[in-house]
């Protein structure tokens, strides 16, 4: 008998606002079903309903033959649910966490040891059994979360955005594990904001505004775009500017950067003459390519946000004319025995985007924090606009804007008060201050939310507000620490449109990210692993460095994984000899 989860006429509202509207679907065993959709589409609500943690308003869900309302206990026994942040006990070790969940799941004593050995081996956590959960990297935490969710041998596995904030290497390992489980006949529902993951799923369910916009194989959805996906390869000069111009061209629905090429989605099967002219002017060649899931996804949800950044258009070019804006020399940070950042040196030129990439726990954040003056280096120095920020006067700090992954807004203040506060502490006054605040409200369309708390804003607007707060004082340098973590693709495109526009004005950007497609927007990418800077080059050069006969055109992700694995292997042999 094969296991399945069926959903019939499911609706759920919160305070009269519908979150899910008449959902009908079937999740079959032996398949990975990807649950995708923009922020606030109802993905998490559906997951929680499937896990029997909420009661539907109407309709019914049957999980492995049990009803989620009347047979809650059986449903809990049959499912393994891994929420966005799995409830690991940070002060317990890996082994103790497993033991706790085994006890909670009432796993018989005689089966425990065998189960632990199997799961630890499966997740590759065997060498870390005594390590505290709080000391695990993001990727390892997710693996432990998965192990805990698998303790009772569930028939149905529900994974709610398991890969948010996880580096590509760990993401790939996680995916392999889940693939293996689904091969055993398990029902796997995997919700994700990564569309390349969705592309690998057997079936996708695309939610938009609480309703199913598409369900079926990802390939079938991609096929709808046959003849509309184009690649403008080998454009010369500033690719980001060509992308902006392409997105402004008639007939272009969406576009992203891919190495020195632009990937474009057209609204019709044939490129317009305007586009042909533009690509010719850029020195590129326009050719049709096979559509991928992301193209179809954006198209289905109404196309990309375009290439125009109103805020960048309104900001005057950066006046500071020095050529190097950020510089670090021999930057080192030790926490006791542990070296988080080991002798890292690089510089960022004016108007450049430098991407800081690396696995979880590689030392990205530590390096980043030392650069913005939030952490004292053990050795070496970090200069921003020629100044060490830790020792600098307040005036020097006016040069930089900062945006962190948590968005760091005051939830107890309204949107308007947040704008007031941040403009105030950056020393803006009087009419200029009012003018800048009004400008941000207008450009980012914050008007309907002015009296609300940032906490209740849709994620996209939260991000806009955070960016607005970081930009009001017109910084020359932007520090962005995972600014798009967990954000859906359309919102991310909009964000990068602004960054592109700002950089064109001469703003310098330092950004950390786990999204490989975002790395393509960077002028150069610094790859950090185990505290060391292992590569620093343009995205294309990094890709070329791992190219082999078997893999002539590696993607950014393949380059990332290749470079990291090579260095890890090197470090291991060093440790052995």
């Amino acid at each position, binding site marked *: 008998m094969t296991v399945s989860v069926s959903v019939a006429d499911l609706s759920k509202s919160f305070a009269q606002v519908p979150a899910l509207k008449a959902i009908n679907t079937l999740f079959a065993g032996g398949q990975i079903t990807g649950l995708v959709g923009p922020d606030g589409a109802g993905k998490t609500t559906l997951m929680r309903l499937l896990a029997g943690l909420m009661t539907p308003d109407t309709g019914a869900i049957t999980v492995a033959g049990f009803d989620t309302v009347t047979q809650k206990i059986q449903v809990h026994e049959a499912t393994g649910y891994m929420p966005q942040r799995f409830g690991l006990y940070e002060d317990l070790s890996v082994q103790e966490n497993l033991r706790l969940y085994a006890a909670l799941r009432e796993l018989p004593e005689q089966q425990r040891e065998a189960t632990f050995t199997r799961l630890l081996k499966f997740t590759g956590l065997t060498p870390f059994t005594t390590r505290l959960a709080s000391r695990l990297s993001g990727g390892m935490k997710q693996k432990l979360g998965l192990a805990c969710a698998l303790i009772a041998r569930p028939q149905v596995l529900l994974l709610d955005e398991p890969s948010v904030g996880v580096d590509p290497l760990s993401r790939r390992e996680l995916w392999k594990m889940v693939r293996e489980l689904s091969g055993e006949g398990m029902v796997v529902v995997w919700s994700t904001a990564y569309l390349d993951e969705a592309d690998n799923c057997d079936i996708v369910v695309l939610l938009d505004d609480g309703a199913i916009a598409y369900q079926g194989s990802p390939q079938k959805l991609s096929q709808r775009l046959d003849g509309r996906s184009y690649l403008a390869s080998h454009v010369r000069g500033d690719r980001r500017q060509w992308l902006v111009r392409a997105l402004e061209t008639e007939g272009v629905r969406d576009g992203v950067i891919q190495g020195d090429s632009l990937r474009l989605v057209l609204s019709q099967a044939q490129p317009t003459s305007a586009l042909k002219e533009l690509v010719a002017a850029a020195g590129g060649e326009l050719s049709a390519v096979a559509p991928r899931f992301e193209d179809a996804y954006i198209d289905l949800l109404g196309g990309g946000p375009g290439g125009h950044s109103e805020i960048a258009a309104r900001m005057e070019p950066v006046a500071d004319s020095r050529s190097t804006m950020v510089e670090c020399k021999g930057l080192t940070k030790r926490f006791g025995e542990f070296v988080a950042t080991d002798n890292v040196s690089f510089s960022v030129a004016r108007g450049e985007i430098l991407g800081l990439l690396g696995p979880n726990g590689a030392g990205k954040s530590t390096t980043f*924090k030392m650069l*913005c*003056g*939030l952490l*004292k280096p053990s050795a070496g120095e970090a200069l921003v606009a020629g100044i060490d*920020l*830790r020792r600098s006067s*307040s*005036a020097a*700090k*006016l040069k*930089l804007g*900062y945006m*962190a992954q*948590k*968005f*760091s*807004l*005051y*939830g*107890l*203040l309204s949107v308007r*008060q947040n704008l*007031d*506060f*941040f403009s*105030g*502490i*950056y*020393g803006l*006054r009087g009419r200029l201050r009012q003018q800048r605040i009004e400008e941000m409200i207008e450009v980012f369309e914050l008007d309907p939310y002015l009296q609300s708390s940032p906490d209740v804003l849709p994620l996209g607007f939260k991000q806009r507000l955070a960016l607005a707060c970081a930009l009001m004082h017109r910084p020359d340098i932007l*520090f962005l620490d995972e600014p798009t973590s967990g954000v859906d693709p359309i919102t991310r495109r909009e964000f990068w449109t602004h960054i592109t526009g700002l950089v064109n004005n001469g703003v310098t950007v330092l950004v950390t990210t786990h999204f490989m497609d975002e790395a393509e927007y960077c002028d150069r990418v610094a790859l950090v692993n185990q505290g060391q800077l292992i590569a620093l080059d343009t995205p294309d050069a990094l890709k070329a460095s791992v190219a082999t006969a078997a893999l002539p055109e590696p993607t950014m992700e393949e380059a990332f994984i290749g470079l990291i694995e090579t260095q890890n292997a090197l470090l291991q042999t060093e440790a052995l000899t």
Partner: protein
Amino acid sequence: MLSQLYHSVIKEFLTFFRDPGTRGVLLAAPLMQVLVFSFAASMEVRNVDIALINEDSGRWSQEFIARLRSAEFVGAVETVPTMQSFSNAVDRQRYLVGVRFPADFSRRIERGQSASVQLTLDGRRANAGQIASAYIGTIAAQMNVDIRSNQPQTRLAPGVELRHWFNPNLEFFWFIVPALAASMVLITPLMMTALSIAREREMGTFDQLLVSPVTPGQIILGKTLPAVFAGFFSGSLITLLAVYAFKIPFVGNVGLMYCGMLCFVLAVTGIGLTVSAVTNTQQQAMLGVFFCMIPLITTSGFVTPVENMPAGLQVFAEINPLKHYIIIVQGCFLKDYGWREIATNSWPLVVIATVMLTSATMILRSRLN
């Protein structure tokens, strides 16, 4: 730079008043505590049940018992046959006090000798027992005076007449409500400031502040002013309550009391901000608050007189801002303190405030470096 400070202060006020939880904890809780504590934490002893073991058959023991029965604080007075049955009854907490008259009690008095009464107190109720024993002692002393005055052959002993200044009728509320009011002014600013930096660390907004041009000194100052305001607010509320609800006379100068309050709140704010500067989460900050608050209250002289503490603790009491502030508040309510007395008790507060606020700023700066 002033505008940055202004915006920091506004932000603190807004976060303070927008959070219903904080509002409740910081404003309603102290009021509730004043009401509950002042009625419950009474130091008066009433309805004391007394057991009598009377081995004396003379008139003087009867006289003593008659006086005991008519005393206001006494509940039941019952005769028990033996010490053994008394001790059984005390086990069941039936009696607080046992009064035993030895066989020669009346005889010795008749002879003009001193006679003794044995008091046995239930040590488990030490406070009430002590107070009851003092009351009984007063009865004995009074009787002593009366006996001597009736016996012209002995010289009249000079009787001691007590007169309590500032609180002539020894009204218990007069003493406890001002002290409570002082303790309550401790809680609001301490909690508010201890949570503030820790909360920003938790939310991630603290990093955002640190990369902005705001300096650690401005951050501290920005968080101090709203706490002073909140302290004044709850302090005023409690003072009004004391004067109008509990009818405690306020004979001092209101302005001088506020001078003392300002120094006190600044000292407490310094302690709160130091706690907050060393903690990473609100949970840690809360534990820090309790860690500070209990010793601050127990060594303040509110529960036990400072003079009764061991020497080491007396030194600690000197650096306890609450000890000084209780003196100020009680002084303002009952004694009409002048500026000289206020200054004498306020300067330690100013020192504590300076040290603690500086240390909070230094810790922020050093954590940054």
